[in-house]
């Protein structure tokens, strides 16, 4: 608690889980959740470093912006996903491979 290590470990684990989710989920929305996990891990790192390293609180501010980004990203991603769902009635990314090689 008074050491940065636990936070970093949480960040790292969530990051790994995020990456895992991105790769593991078949559903586009699921992948989006993975991305949110990754961004959260980024945030906790920034905030932790802001407390333990930085003399100011730059990290926290960056986190705010990352949250904003996450929101915007999610909005657009969902819009795209909806579009695809409308056309193909699926959001299964394994079936979205018309373009390859």
């Amino acid at each position, binding site marked *: 608690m008074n050491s940065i290590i636990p936070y970093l470990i949480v960040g790292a684990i969530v990051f790994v889980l995020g*990456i895992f989710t*991105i*790769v593991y989920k078949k559903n586009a929305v699921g*992948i989006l959740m993975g991305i949110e996990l990754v961004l959260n891990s980024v945030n906790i790192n920034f905030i932790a470093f802001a407390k333990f390293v930085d003399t100011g609180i730059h990290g926290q501010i960056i986190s705010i912006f990352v949250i904003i980004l996450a929101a915007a990203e999610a909005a657009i991603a969902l819009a795209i996903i909806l579009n695809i769902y409308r056309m193909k009635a699926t959001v299964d*990314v*394994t079936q*979205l*491979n*018309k*373009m*390859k*090689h």
Partner: protein
Amino acid sequence: MITLALYIWLLPLLAFTIQIFLGKRLPRKGDWVSVSAIGISFALSLILFIRMLSNYSPDFQVTASVPWINIGQFKIDMGIYIDNFAIVMLMVVTTVSFLVHIYSIGYMAGDPLYNRFFAYLSLFSFSMLGLVLFDNLFGIFVMWELVGICSYLLIGYYFEKDSAANAGKKAFITNRIGDFGFLLGLLVVFTAIGSFNLSDVYQGVVQGKLSGGLLTAAGILLFCGAIGKSAQFPLHVWLPDAMEGPTPVSALIHAATMVAAGVYLVARISFMLSFDAMLVVAYIGGFTALFAATIAITQNDIKRVLAYSTISQLGYMIMAMGVGAYSAGFFHLVTHAMFKAGLFLGSGSVIHAMHHAMEKTHVHEDPNDIRLMGGFKNKMPATYITFLVFTLAISGIPFFSGFLSKDAILGGTLAFAMSQSNPVHYLLPFFGFTAAIITAFYMFRVVIKTFYGEPKRPDLYEHIHESPKVMTVPLMVLASLSIFIFYTLPSFNPISAEQGWYEQLIEKPASAVSAQLGYPVLEISEQIEHSAHVNGMMISILFALTGIALAFLFYFWKKVDVEALTEKIKPLYTLSYHKYFFDELYNATVVKGLLAWNNILAWFDFHVIDGIVNGSAFIMRHFSSFTGRFDLGFIDGLVNAVGDLTQDVGQSVRKIQTGQVQYYILGALAGLVLIIVTVLI
């Protein structure tokens, strides 16, 4: 003098140029252009000749040269060199050439490419004269090649006949093999001495710039050219085939002049022949003399007999050069030019007659075959008589020119053998004398089979006529030139030319090698020479007569059953009849081998060089998962193969692009991990 020589030389060239471009449009297809050109050359040569006789100086020489190529260290001058040697040669060439030109007017009449024939003849005369006149080996080589081309063109004159085209090609390529040596010899000489000019070379050898083994090598290499051109063993195979050309050509080129150019060359370079080189020359010549004679015995084509006889006689001359009897060899060149040209023209006359007879009777057989002839002496008296004269001359019967020269050669070889401690060298006179018997034998075989006895084909015989004057007159001229008188002037000694102009004016060239070494290369004392000469004369007359007698026994009186004898010595006969299978041998080894080799290389080029990466692409395909385009054979080229390879790699890499975004992310992740792992470990 020089101007005169230039006229002699360049007039035929002028004639050639006119003929080749305008010949067709000129009256009589322009034969008169060539004839008059060579006629003038002949007349001019005669002037030179007479001047020479009247000046009577053995050391006479005139030279003139101009720079031709001159860059840095590399200089070649071109010039003319006239001495007695050259004048005699000019005389021979222009005489025979002139007569052959005249003869051709009759012989070639009606030929569709009449004008071209004369053009070629002119070109040949030009080249041959140039060969005689040039003062440097390079120029000689150039002309040497040109006469070769003329020979090629004229042998292949009836190019529609495959055999003629083949013969021309064979002649040229065989000669090229000889020229390979010649050229290398030139390179050796130039590298050592820095000049091609004969007198420079002479000086160079004297100064020792070229000595020892290299000198011998240079001599032998230059001699290689002569082997090719003079059809010496083992490059003799082309000359018999060269008989595919029109007969006047055979007479001019393949009997009198061009083939003798080899002898002329050896004479010209004799000053630089070391003893070893001379031995090589002598043995090749001697062996050829005998070897070719044995083939001539069994041939049935009249011109082939003469061809082998030519080879054999050239062998004599070469042998003479080898044993140091230069003037004798050269003498034989002169006399041989006359009578052999005569023999060919005579046979041409016969063939001409046969040809007409066959046309009349619509028989399609070989007009050259002596088995179809017989008894022609009544129908063609002029031809017969002249032919007989030539035969006597070649057989070496006294009172005829051949006797004088051949006797000198045989005497020379004998003297050589006697002067040497090694008895093996008696082989040379042995070659010479044996060949002399055989020569007399096969020549009379031809005479008997052609002119005596009963006609073997009466149907043809009926239509045999004497040839027109334009053909017989040259024969007569040549016949008269085969009589001893012309060569022994002013002494009229029928059995020795020692007192004649020839022996007086044509001297054995001084050997530069001797000068370099400080002692003579070859020393033959007066005494030996004399005794050899006397003995040689005796033996040669005896042998010649024996040969003639044998011929009559075999073919005229038929005391010996030729057929039975042939059966008895079948293997020997077969060997001789098939010319010792040399053509077959060369065909099986050199020609086939070369073609096979070429095909191997072409295959190599096509498949290996071109397919090297293709091959790796092939392997790649096996290893990579991608197996498409498998059916594409091996044949795509290098670039294509590189393309294939890269494309296959591309194809494999493309597979990573699965179209699934998660694999993309994984791929990037893997790459990232890979980078970190590689760098950190």
